[in-house]
C-alpha cells in the first residue's frame, strides 16, 4: 500500500506541477468532494487558507497579504474591498453560470451590477433552541422578544447566549424595536442599548464560537446565532442520539441575511483559474453540495433540485418573501466609534 502511494505520488505530481489555485475561504465552507472534482476538472491543486470572520480577512489583506486568488467576503466586507480597489472585475464571458443565480441575490447595494462578485451562499442570523425545553417552558420561538423580554427570559435565566458581535446583536435589538438593522440614528441605538442592558443579566454569555456545542449537549437552551451553526447543532444532537432536538427559526420581526460572495483579489496569481473556479461553483450540482453539507442558504436556482428535501423545505434556510431579511451595510469610521463605545459599555456594565 505504501509503495503504491509512493508511485502514485510520482505519477500524479507532474500533473499538478505549478498549477495552483489559492482559495482564502471561511473555515469549513466548501465540500471536500467539490474540491476533489474541481482539481480533476482544472488539473490543478486547490490550496486553502481559512479565516473565521470578515474582520480577520480585511485585517489580513490590509496588512498586505498577497498570493490569494479567490476570497469569499460577506456583503459589507465586499463593499469595503471594492472601495479599496482590492479586487479584479469579473470577466462575464468566463462565468456564464452566473445566470443560475436567483436575481434577488444579484445587483446588491454592495456590488451594483455584480462587477466584481458572484454569490456563493448565505446564512441568516436567527434564534436556535432546544425544542423540548421551549415547549415545556411555554416560550415562543418566532420572535426576538424571547431573547430580549425579561418576561420570557426569567424562565431561561442563565441558559441563553447571544452573539459576541456588535453589529449582529445591535441588528437583532433594532429589529425587535421595529427599526431597520442598518438604522444609524443614535437615539435608536441608545434605546437598543437599554433593551440589551435590561436583558443582559439573564444571558449566560456573549458567545460566537462554542454555543453550537453548548446547545448540542443541552447546557444552553436558547441562542442567538447563525443558521449554519444551528443546522450543525441539530445534526450533532441527532448523531449523538440526544433526548431533545434542536430547532431554529426566523423571528417575525425580521433578521439579518449575510450573503457571501466569490471575488478575485487584485494580486491574484492566477485570474484564469479563479474564473474557472467561480464558474464551476456556480454550477447547480457543485453549489448544492455545500448546502447539503452545512445547511447554508443557496442563492443558486439550478442547485435547488439537488438539495436535500429536509433542508430545502426549512423556511429558516430558504426563507419566504415575507421574512423581512436585511443585509448589514458597512458603517463609516465615526459611526463605528460610536457603536464601539456603546458596545464596550454593554460589555462592562
Amino acid at each position, binding site marked *: 500500500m505504501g509503495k503504491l502511494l509512493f508511485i502514485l505520488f510520482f505519477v500524479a505530481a507532474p500533473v499538478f506541477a505549478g498549477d495552483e489555485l489559492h482559495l482564502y475561504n471561511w473555515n469549513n465552507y466548501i465540500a471536500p468532494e467539490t474540491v476533489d472534482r474541481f482539481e480533476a476538472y482544472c488539473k490543478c491543486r486547490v490550496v486553502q487558507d481559512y479565516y473565521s470572520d470578515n474582520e480577520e480577512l480585511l485585517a489580513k489583506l490590509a496588512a498586505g497579504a498577497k498570493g490569494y486568488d479567490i476570497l469569499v467576503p460577506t456583503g459589507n466586507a465586499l463593499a469595503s474591498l471594492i472601495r479599496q480597489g482590492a479586487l479584479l472585475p469579473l470577466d462575464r464571458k468566463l462565468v456564464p453560470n452566473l445566470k443560475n443565480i436567483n436575481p434577488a441575490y444579484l445587483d446588491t447595494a454592495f456590488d451594483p451590477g455584480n462587477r466584481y462578485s458572484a454569490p456563493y451562499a448565505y446564512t441568516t442570523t436567527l434564534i436556535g433552541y432546544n425544542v423540548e425545553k421551549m415547549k415545556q417552558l411555554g416560550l415562543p420561538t418566532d420572535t426576538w422578544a424571547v431573547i430580549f423580554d425579561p418576561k420570557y427570559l426569567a424562565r431561561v435565566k442563565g441558559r441563553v447566549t447571544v452573539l459576541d458581535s456588535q453589529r449582529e446583536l445591535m441588528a437583532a435589538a433594532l429589529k425587535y424595536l421595529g427599526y431597520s438593522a442598518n438604522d444609524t440614528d443614535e437615539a435608536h441605538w441608545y434605546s437598543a442599548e437599554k433593551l440589551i442592558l435590561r436583558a443582559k443579566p439573564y444571558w449566560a454569555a456573549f458567545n460566537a464560537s462554542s454555543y453550537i456545542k453548548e446547545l448540542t449537549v443541552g447546557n444552553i437552551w436558547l441562542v442567538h446565532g447563525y443558521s449554519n451553526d444551528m443546522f450543525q447543532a441539530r445534526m450533532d444532537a441527532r448523531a449523538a442520539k440526544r433526548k431533545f432536538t434542536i430547532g431554529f427559526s426566523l423571528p417575525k420581526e425580521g433578521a439579518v441575511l449575510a450573503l457571501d460572495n466569490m471575488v478575485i483579489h487584485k494580486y491574484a496569481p492566477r485570474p484564469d483559474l479563479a474564473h474557472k473556479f467561480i464558474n464551476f461553483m456556480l454550477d447547480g450540482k457543485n453549489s448544492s453540495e455545500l448546502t447539503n453539507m452545512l445547511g447554508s442558504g443557496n442563492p443558486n436556482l439550478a442547485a435547488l433540485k439537488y438539495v436535500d428535501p429536509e433542508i430545502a423545505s426549512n423556511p429558516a434556510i430558504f426563507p419566504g418573501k415575507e421574512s423581512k431579511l436585511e443585509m448589514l451595510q458597512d458603517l463609516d469610521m465615526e459611526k*463605528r466609534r460610536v457603536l464601539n463605545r456603546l458596545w*464596550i459599555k454593554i460589555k*462592562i456594565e
Partner: protein
Amino acid sequence: MTRNIGKWLISGPPVFYLAVFFVIPTFIMVLASFRHAGEFGGLAPIFLHDVRGAHLNLTLESYREYFSDFIYSRLFIKTLIYALVTTFFCLVTAYPLALLIAGSEKRHRDLLVLLVILPFWSNFLIRIYAWMIILGPQSALSVGLNGFLGMFGIEPVGLLFTPFAVVLCLIYVQLPFMVLPLYANLEKHDPALLDAAQDLGANSWQRFWRITFPLSLPGVYAGIALVFIPVLGIFAVPDILGGTGGIMIGNLIKQEFLEARDWPFGSALSIILTLGALCIVGVAAMVAGRTVKNDA
C-alpha cells in the same frame, strides 16, 4: 579586546532580534496611536497634501477618547484586579509546591519539575476548552457542588461563564510560571543555614520566615513579574470562559483592531497598558528594593 568581539558575536543575534521584533514595532505602535484611523481600517496617510503643501496628519484623539470616558479606566482597573488576584493565588499555591520539590530527594526533583511543565505539551486553547467541560453545568464538579449547596437549601450556582471561571483558569495557566522561578531559587538554598538556625533555637515557623522566605524573595519577584504581566494582556481566557461581564483590557484591544477597525485607539490602549504595567512594576521594584535593603 578579542574577548569583547566574541561577546558581541554571541549576543548580537538576540539583540538584533529584539531590536527588529520588539523595539521597532513598539515605535510603530507609538506612532500609530497618534494617527487617524483609515476609512476602511488600517491608518490614514501620515502626510496630508493640500494647497499649503504637505503637513503632518497627527492627532491626540485616541488619548482624548480614553480619558473622555471613565469606562476605559474602569476596565483597566478590573483587569488589574484580576491580575492581582491571579498573582496572589499563584504565589500562595506555588510556594509550598516549589518548597516541596526543592526539598525532595535529588533524583526525584527532575521528574517533579517535568510534571509541572507537562501541561505545556498540550495546546493552550485545548486546556482552556477542557475547563469549559470541567465547569459546565453537567460536570461532576458542578453537580457535586450544587448537591452540596442544596443540602443547605442554597440555590444552585453556575460555574462556567463567570469571573470565577476566568480567574480560576488564569491561575491554572500561569501557575507553572510561578513554580519554576521559585524552585530555581529555593533549590540553591544552603541547608546548613536551616541547621544553624535550629541549633540556635529557631522553631520551624521562625526558620521559614527568618531564613527561607527572605532568601527566596528574588524568586518571588521573578515569579510575580512572570505571572502578573502576561495576565494583563490576556484575551483568550475571558473570551472562552467569561460570561456577559467577563471582558478584560486585552479583549478590548483585540476588538479595536478587528471588529472596530480602529488601529490608533487600539495602539493607544496598548501603550497605556504597557505604561501602566511599567509603572506598577517600577513602584513594586522600588518597594522591593527598599525592603531588601532594610533587611540587610
